[in-house]
């Protein structure tokens, strides 16, 4: 697989929020704001079981996209990107399996570790599935302006 373009890596590292779009049963795009976590190879997002409809959609159709568009959420950077890829729901252990991503999550939301220590207050929020996205194609707008065609990078062939 080709590497993720450097500017997109910077956006992934900085972004406090991105827009995950999944495809619902009727074929319509449904978008959810989530914290994107990049482990150096794949993009991960976590979803509480409280808000698990997106997981149902992914199980039905694995094709997703993740956009990073909000300059406020990336510390003022004006460039934007959309990553298309294939998603997989990882839910062997909703109670603690997602915690392997806690170090990356904590960098973006330091308070999460304190909330986790008090998980008794909101137990279902911390029952979570992981969404693992294998990037396939990346569209990048250097100045964030959609009037200019994006730079497109293919990272992998389309899933069979």
């Amino acid at each position, binding site marked *: 697989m080709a590497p993720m373009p450097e500017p997109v890596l910077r956006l992934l590292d900085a972004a406090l929020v991105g827009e995950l779009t999944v495809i619902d049963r009727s074929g319509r795009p449904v*978008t959810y704001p989530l914290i994107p976590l990049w482990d150096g190879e794949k993009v991960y997002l976590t979803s509480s079981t409280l808000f698990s409809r997106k997981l149902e959609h992914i199980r039905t159709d694995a094709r997703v996209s993740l956009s990073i568009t909000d300059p406020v959420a990336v510390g003022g950077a004006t460039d934007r990107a959309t990553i298309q890829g294939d998603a997989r729901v990882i839910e062997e252990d909703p109670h603690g399996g997602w915690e392997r991503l806690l170090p990356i999550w904590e960098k973006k939301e330091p308070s999460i570790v304190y909330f986790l220590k008090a998980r008794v207050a909101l137990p279902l929020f911390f029952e979570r599935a992981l969404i693992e996205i294998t990037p396939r194609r990346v569209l990048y707008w250097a100045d964030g302006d959609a009037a200019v065609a994006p730079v497109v990078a293919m990272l992998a062939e389309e899933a069979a």
Partner: protein
Amino acid sequence: MRSTPEIDARTGLEKLATYPYQVATWIDETGYPLSVAVEARIDPVAGTARFVAPAGLAIPTANDISLTGSHIRPQPGYGYDERRHVTVWGPALVEDGIVAVRGTSAWGWDEAEVPFFEYSERSVGKSRRYFDALSAERGTPVKPRLSFGFLTLRSTRLPFLTATLVPVVLGIVIAARQGSFDLVAALLTIVGACLVHLGLNVSNDVFDTLQGADDANVTPTQFSGGSRVIQYGLVSLRQMAALSTLFYVLAGLIGLGLLAMRGSTALLVIGIVGIIVSLGYTAPPLKFVYRGLGEIAVALGFGPFMLVGAYVVQTRGALSWEPFAASIPVALLVALILYVNEIPDRRGDAHAGKRTLPVRFSRGAVIAGYNLAAGAAYVALVVAVVVGLLPVPALLMLLTIPLALQVSRGLEPNYDNPYGLMAVMGVNVKLHLLAGLALLAGYAVALVAGAVAPGVDLFIG
């Protein structure tokens, strides 16, 4: 209960217009979603959003596309707040390089309108369905979990035991000041009373679930709305019923032991009536709290029954007015814990036919009721001291008046805000605890004075 925050298309467009840019999303020719940030001109009245077609990308006109607005405010070193998002769907037309989307449906969430905790609570059904589906897929039950310690804390509502410890210890101390003290009986009394309280807490969850009150409540807080362990799937209804039964059986055994050790008719009556009131608090056919009698049941149970009960264990049945007088302010303040905690629950309670006082009365009447009852607690204290039933140092409890005023002042601005009311409820719980500790401190002074200066009389008259 609706969990998906669906809104009409016009409202969606109105909300979308407040975002500095929108994310246009469609399914591209490869079948993947594709998103592009655009700046749309939105006309909610016409029901449309228009934006310049993004360069180099083909927008489909055969299927709905969406426009999403999303906002978050980073809080460096902490995380974020001000979360809100909205998505509007509709068919798109592309003419002369302009994309026109006609909004047909929308959804979104704004934590300023629906607080995160309420949004989460409204979504509990989704979590249940998630675990049911996962269990069916694996062929074995998969449930949400909590550590044993957290689960015990949550399911029994252990921190509320202060409501029992205050009157029971006070009853024991009053008896001790009068010269009656048996350590084993005192310890058994404390444990037995705590078990009754735990049985009450757990049975309250069982019967509120069976009668629909806890399911109807979408704004529970750490002080109100029950433990939620059944709703969250952490413990089954059957397990909670068994736990409650266990607590009551153990309490009954301790009660029988105390009767055998310190036999008295008064203790027998208090024990039997106390358990009936405790169970009947939510359990049919009595279900006092559903009839607006919860405060009276709680006042009696955590006031005279606990305090005088603990006293008669020590005195082997001898009664006096002193413990009864001491129990009145304690009873009023503990009833006020329930009373204030019922305020955020009132909509769900009304829906489930749980006609608590905040369900029955207006906001003004409920707040006036708080002021009256809290004031009565202090008046009862002063009168009891003045007529010589309680020692003068018991007036230390007056030091807690500022807390009562703090609660009173906090009710009006937070009456319709369950999460704003949480701090007020916390102060109200603290008020009962500190008032009880102040009474105990007063009695500690009386005990010490009695030991070092037997001639000094700390009672008026």
